[in-house]
């Protein structure tokens, strides 16, 4: 018997048909739809096609969800109200289960999938959203697609795919205190570059990955696309199974055990080979903060802003010089000396309960010196945080405590910064204008963002808060 990778196992389980030219027709077990699915539904309508398996799609309002009210009448921009209405109308017409604005399980699609047990090991999962690799953290083959492929999925429950190359990143040792999965993913993206993973599926493995909670694993896989790779995955283990025990299962013990026996086979065999493989020493990592306008621009909090003048390639040099100009920064400035105007804690990268616990803990009884906003990744996360009293900690420190949604990650609901503002953000993209025209976004972990809220600048929390 020859050795195969986790990716190969997931792939071959879902191969409906091999075609010599078109590739593999992959069966899709679960499709998650948010407001952006509107284009896909109109494509279907134009062709007179029906949703083939409405039972395998779940629809969620997240990108345009207002975070101050669950009343759609409060959404003041007509086109935003309209796109939320259209998701509901499309779901209803097709018979798709909808988690609308007021639903107690509402949340960001990549937070609620695992949370509700919609995401399980061994599945194929797609969503019209580039951060779908998040679900790979549960041992699923999950990838982001565009509107035409969403339409293809709705119409056929399949997609034609060609097998990507495979990469394994082994993270040895253990992360230091206050160095998180977010720092690990920012380190991976910095090492590979924003396009370095293009064409690959990335499996994360090694002791530091195994030691991560499910929340941490989701954060790690979430940003895989920021290195260009559409797939990120982690072999499911006891941590995954414990997380899923009460979420993905209501049958008898015997069936659960049979399920577990199958899930336990979902790992790369000992002799499995990868097209590319490298190791990272977890203990060498510091909390990371980005300085530029690409997620690849991360450096340790104890570093200075690099000088792009030394970059040989002209196109790359010019892009980095433009990034620094946009960010209003100069080479050589210490990261710890950057002054901030605003803080956003949330998103599908860092809007889970563990993230909110870390942020609340970092406040340490201090008060916010700049506007800071906490947006839980789901209403369930919000409820859990409130049971633990985290909302009180945030509110007492002068942070805003909002309702769940994508919010300032992409600002589609209108939660935006002002031009020129510098924002400490736990989201995944620091692109030009992502958080509002002219807003300067720095990516980081939740405890760092909370620290900035109460001090105004980054602090090496891995040194001060042992």
């Amino acid at each position, binding site marked *: 018997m020859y050795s195969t990778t986790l990716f190969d196992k997931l792939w071959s389980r879902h191969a*409906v*048909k091999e075609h010599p*030219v*078109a*590739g593999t*027709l992959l*069966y899709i077990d679960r499709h998650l739809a948010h407001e*952006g699915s*509107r*284009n896909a539904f*109109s494509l279907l309508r134009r*062709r007179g*096609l029906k949703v083939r398996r409405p039972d395998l799609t779940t629809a969620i309002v997240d990108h*345009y969800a207002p975070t101050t009210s669950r009343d759609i009448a409060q959404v003041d*921009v007509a*086109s*935003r109200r*309209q*796109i939320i209405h259209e998701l509901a109308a499309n779901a209803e017409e097709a018979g798709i289960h909808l988690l609308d604005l007021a639903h107690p399980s509402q949340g960001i699609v990549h937070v609620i999938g695992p949370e509700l047990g919609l995401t399980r090991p061994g599945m194929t999962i797609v969503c*019209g*959203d*580039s951060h779908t690799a998040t679900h790979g953290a549960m041992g699923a083959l999950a990838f*982001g*697609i*565009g*509107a*035409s*492929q969403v339409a*293809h999925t709705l*119409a*056929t*429950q*399949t997609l*034609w795919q*060609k097998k990507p190359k495979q990469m394994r990143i082994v993270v040895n040792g253990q992360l230091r205190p206050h160095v998180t999965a977010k720092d690990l993913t920012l380190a991976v993206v910095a090492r590979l570059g*924003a*396009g370095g993973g*293009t064409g690959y599926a990335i499996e994360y493995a090694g002791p530091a990955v195994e030691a991560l909670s499910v929340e941490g694993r989701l954060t790690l896989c979430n940003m895989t*696309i920021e290195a*260009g*790779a*559409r797939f990120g995955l982690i072999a499911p283990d006891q941590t995954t199974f414990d997380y899923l025990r009460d979420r993905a299962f209501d049958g008898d013990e015997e069936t659960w055990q049979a399920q577990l026996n199958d899930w336990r086979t979902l790992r790369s065999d000992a002799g499995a080979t990868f097209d590319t493989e490298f190791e990272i020493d977890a203990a060498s990592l510091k909390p990371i903060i980005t300085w530029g306008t*690409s997620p690849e621009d991360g450096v340790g909090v104890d570093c200075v802003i690099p000088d792009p003048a030394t970059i040989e*390639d*002209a*196109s*790359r040099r*010019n*892009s980095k010089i*433009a990034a620094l100009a946009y960010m209003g920064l100069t080479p050589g400035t210490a990261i710890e000396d950057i002054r901030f105007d605003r803080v956003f804690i949330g998103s599908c990268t860092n809007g889970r309960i563990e993230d909110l616990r870390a942020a609340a803990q970092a406040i340490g009884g201090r008060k916010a010196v700049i506007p800071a906003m906490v947006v839980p990744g789901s209403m369930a996360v919000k409820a859990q945080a409130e049971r633990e009293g985290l909302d009180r900690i945030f509110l007492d420190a002068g942070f805003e405590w909002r309702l769940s949604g994508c919010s300032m990650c*992409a*600002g*589609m609901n209108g939660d935006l910064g002002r031009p020129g503002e510098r924002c400490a953000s736990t989201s995944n*993209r620091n*692109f*030009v*204008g*992502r958080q509002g*025209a*002219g807003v300067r976004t720095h990516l980081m972990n939740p405890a760092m963002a909370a620290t900035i809220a109460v001090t105004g600048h980054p602090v090496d929390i891995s040194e001060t808060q042992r």
Partner: protein
Amino acid sequence: MNPFTLHTGTGLPLGLENVDTDQILPARFLSLKPEDGYADYCFRDLRFDADGLPLTGTPLTSDAYAGATFLVAGSNFGCGSSREGAVYALQHIGLRVVIAESFGDIFYQNALVNGFLPIQTDGETIRQILTQLQAHPRTLIHVDLEAQTVSVDESVTFNFQIDTFKKHCLLNGVDEIGFTMSFLNDIRRYEADISPK
């Protein structure tokens, strides 16, 4: 999808690397319908300042490149968000082809299914094309998809790679959903096999 076979036009030398889909079509316009046109929003923040006045010093607003149908960019063009609107927006400003050193995966797929041709070539060739277009903005570029060749004036010519299936679909305007529908029996059989017995 409309077939894509041959095309000749002028080019817009954008250069730049890591042009993400948020720059191609900013998120704040995504609640608007593509049917109503995205031309005004394509590269919005690279073309206009906060007051809506055109920015100078970029080929995107230069008269010299008006009417271009080829866009020439650096590495990792179309990275980031999966929004297919980015492809519609590029089409709505009249573009038909992007030549870049590399592409974001999802953008690349989105382009192909919309009959918009993404052409990948090496960094040296990109630099030559950019130089040529900067010196001679009206230079004609010609692409022949069947032959997988591009010529920029007579000065730069090169071959490019494209997936055989995607090429077939582009040349013949094949709609992938229609193609897949011919495999419905295979899909049904698969579903019968995996459903709990």
